[in-house]
């Protein structure tokens, strides 16, 4: 008979819910117990057979969306509701009973009816917000958020385009300036070369004149 702890270990082992140390330890235990070994094989075989079971897939769009009557239906709690109703009824009865022996005030204000003992101040204002108004506010906030997001996205897009154009102009200016500078350097170089070549020709001419003069004197 396999004890409960070993049964649980067998399940952990079979469904691979053990860490490596536990697995090694349990494998050792299996090696030493023929009963455990046989049971493990039986369980594996059964698991393999029921692994062939394939529940049918549902048809497409199987879920029918909720109609209004099913939406937000209050969970049924009959007993609790009964207690609440009974308690409320008891309170009303007690109030009426006490009211008989005291000065009960009942009247109407702009906000509705009131029931009170003594001389109440009826100027109490209770301005709440209905679910419908809340939904409208939420819808409005959503719309505004959406518009704001779109406007932000457009602004970001415009900023990015402007930045890109600026970068492009700056790059073009840089290359233009560099080209002009290179052109000036090249022209200067050319002038210097021209000047030095003229000097060299002049020097050569003078040297040749000197030689001719010397040869003619001889």
């Amino acid at each position, binding site marked *: 008979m396999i004890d409960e702890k070993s049964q*649980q270990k067998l399940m952990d082992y079979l*469904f691979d819910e053990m860490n490596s140390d536990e697995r090694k330890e349990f494998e050792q235990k299996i090696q030493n117990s023929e009963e455990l070994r046989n049971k493990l094989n039986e*369980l594996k075989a059964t698991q393999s057979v029921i692994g062939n079971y*394939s529940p049918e897939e549902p048809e497409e769009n199987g*879920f029918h969306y909720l109609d209004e009557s*099913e939406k*937000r239906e209050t969970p049924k709690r009959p007993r609790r509701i009964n207690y609440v109703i009974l308690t409320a009824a008891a309170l009303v009865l007690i109030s009426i009973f006490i009211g008989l022996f005291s000065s009960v005030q009942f009247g109407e204000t702009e906000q509705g009816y009131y029931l009170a003992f003594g001389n109440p101040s009826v100027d109490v204002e209770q301005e709440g917000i209905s679910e419908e108004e809340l939904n409208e506010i939420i819808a409005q906030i959503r719309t505004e958020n959406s518009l704001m997001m779109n406007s932000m996205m457009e602004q970001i897009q415009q900023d990015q385009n402007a930045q890109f154009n600026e970068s492009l102009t700056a790059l073009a200016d840089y290359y233009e300036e560099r080209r002009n500078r290179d052109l000036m350097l090249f022209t200067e170089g050319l002038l210097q070369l021209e000047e030095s070549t003229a000097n060299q020709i002049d020097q050569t001419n003078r040297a040749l004149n000197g030689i001719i003069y010397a040869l003619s004197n001889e």
Partner: protein
Amino acid sequence: MEKQHESYLAEFVQNGHDESFQIIAEHWYPAIYRFAYSYFGNRDDASEIAQKTLIKVYQNIRSLKEVGSFKSWIYRIANNLCLDELKRAGRRKSESLSLIPKELKLSELTPVTEIESKELNSLIHQALNRLPEQVRAVVILKQFEEMTFIEIGDTLQIPEGTAKTRMYKGLDLLGSILKQWNIETDYLNYD
């Protein structure tokens, strides 16, 4: 669907975002349908349970405090609905394991590989039906929904160890049932 996405969607629905519920419904309907199909073995019951489960999810999602445990919560609802349906219809109950329907028992010892898949599906379903309810729920969640034992414990609100013990019992009983039906499970090959 990732667990984090489930949590976000559940939170959105809690805050009144109905479009998120549509995503939840489309994602979970097939899974719950398969789960219920494992219980009942027919399309009508499976689709009814899946439908009811999602309606309950929609109606009660605001009461879900731990959105991280959405998966366990939805399966718990589905499982409870399945059990209610079984009780209502007076089906299953504890059919004695010794009562083997004649039409199920094969005439001679037959290896699993020689049984047609449709027939085998039906046999396995019948075998599942013969498990005690508590055991069957664990077997379905473990074997077909591939939950961990911790998740099963969370879903059925039982200790993890109990889930393991029930799974052991389930496999053990299924093995016995299959043997009684002359279905050879060729387990000797595993040595």
